[in-house]
């Protein structure tokens, strides 16, 4: 069966269209209309959001700055399993694991640094985390850093954004 051919009807280009002048006039009518709409009904016409003063509601799954979630006792929820730093395509998560003093806890991240300038905001670390310790739902922007060193967010900074997770922490109460 032969392919079906659809011939699209284009507007006919008569002399006036080809002479370009009426089309210029029509184009200018459009821009002038937009301009007068702006000057008379500014609120309707403008799409600009004056950012620092006005903000839009971000979507629920908007990925902002990372945060580290907390245990019930306020300690870091992360168990330093290295899943996030392994999957991170930008290799921006740096974790040093250490043994915890408490017998019930095996490991914890002694150092947990994220380089926000390298982060590509893909969210794979959040997907990879087995115990809901790292999230990107803080709703906070990465600020414009003037000094590169300030873009390395350490454990304490990340934990300041964190809250208690609703998920049950692994261990004896988890069954």
């Amino acid at each position, binding site marked *: 069966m032969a392919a079906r051919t659809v011939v699209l009807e284009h507007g006919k280009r008569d002399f006036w269209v080809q002479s370009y*002048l009426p089309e*210029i006039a029509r*184009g*200018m009518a*459009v*821009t*002038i209309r*937009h*301009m007068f*709409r*702006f*000057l008379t009904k500014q609120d309707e*016409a*403008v*799409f*600009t959001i*004056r950012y620092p003063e006005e903000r839009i509601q971000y979507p629920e799954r908007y990925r902002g700055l990372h945060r580290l979630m907390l245990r019930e006792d306020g300690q870091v929820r992360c168990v330093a399993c290295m899943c996030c730093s392994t999957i991170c395509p930008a290799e921006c998560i740096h974790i040093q694991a250490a043994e915890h003093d408490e017998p019930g806890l095996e490991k914890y991240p002694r150092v947990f640094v994220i380089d926000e300038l390298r982060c590509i905001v893909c969210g794979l670390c959040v997907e990879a985390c087995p115990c809901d310790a790292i999230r990107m739902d803080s709703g906070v922007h990465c600020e414009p850093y003037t000094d590169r060193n300030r873009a390395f967010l350490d454990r304490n900074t990340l934990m300041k954004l964190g809250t208690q997770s609703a998920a049950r922490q692994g261990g004896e109460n988890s069954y």
Partner: protein
Amino acid sequence: MFILTESLISLIKILAILFGFVMALGALLTLTERKWAAFVQNRYGPMRAEVMGYRFGGLFHLVADTMKMMIKEDFIPEKASKGLHTLAPGLGFFPAMVIFAIIPFMDQWCPGVSLPVDGRDLCFGFETVDALNAAEATAVATFEATRNYFQIANLNAGLLYIFAITGISVYGTALAGWSSNSKFSLLGGLRASAQMISYEVSMGLSLAGLLMIYGTIDVNEMVREQGTLLFGAIPNWGIFTQPLAFLLFLTAAIAESKRAPFDMPEAESELVAGYFTEYSAMKFGIFMIGEFIMIVFIGAIVSTLFLGGWQVPWLYSDGFHFTSSSMMAASSSGAFTVGELQAYVAGGAPDVSLPYWLVAFLRVGAFITKILLMIAVQLQIRWTLPRFRYDQIMNLGWKILLPLSLANLFITAVVLLLVS
């Protein structure tokens, strides 16, 4: 003493026109254009610069931009031709400024009594009109010399001066492109030369029709001729007698100003910034403000030649005349008797009588309004039309504008021959 006063008047004229009007408008246009673009595109435009909490709709961006230009590093590429690289912005800016020398903002000032004769204001001496002695009524009225207060230089080669200056304005651009020693700049400079030379041809030819109609190239005389009434009712403006030439000249002039839709020399999407790619700080600023002053100039020259210059429709030196029949008729010898003038003044001829100073004020106001209107048209065109391709620009210049302006010239000549 005479030379001293004359130089003082010239100096005041130069300061008032160039710095009080042209430079001020050019500087204001840098902001206006960005605001205009924003309004057309439904956004606010620059508005955040503030002093003590006041913003005035972004007016302080003028100061902020200027300060940025002053403070920035003035960078000259290592292998650039340093002298020419420094000279080029000046060469680009200079023609844009000196070209205003022949723009008349009002008719020559008449210290005596100015009366319209068949659409042209003539300047008579005081005593001829005020003389009440009937015995002198048959004496020939004396003409009073007019003073050139509203035009920097009253050159009788006015239009040729314009062509000469627009001709040399390509040097700044071409030199900037060549001396930067950068491929982008060189391409931009070459494109500028080609484009400006191409469009200068049709620009000049489209005005030749006007020269034939008005029979003079003195710019102020051309404006005075536009005050005469066509068929005794319509002002004899260039746009009515030469509508095609108006469109051709406007197109060619916008192409001369190197702005979108004819921004091939700049071409930010292809050539970074074209001929001023290698310029920074105030040298770049001078190119930029030269471009904006070109806009003001195009507004001024189009309104001078086609929109009646300082003429207000039907307004003459003693008030409004809606038909040419209420004015004195021109005499074949060019001379008038005192009695004729007295009869005219006593007859209360103008439909609306106005004092001469108010007429002068209205005329300057009308001219500035026309300039602003033409600037608005240019900005609107710049933010409406997409850019041409380079070959389309050459096609338009050589294959459309040039034949059309030749045809316009031919038809004008034939019509003038048949009429006279």
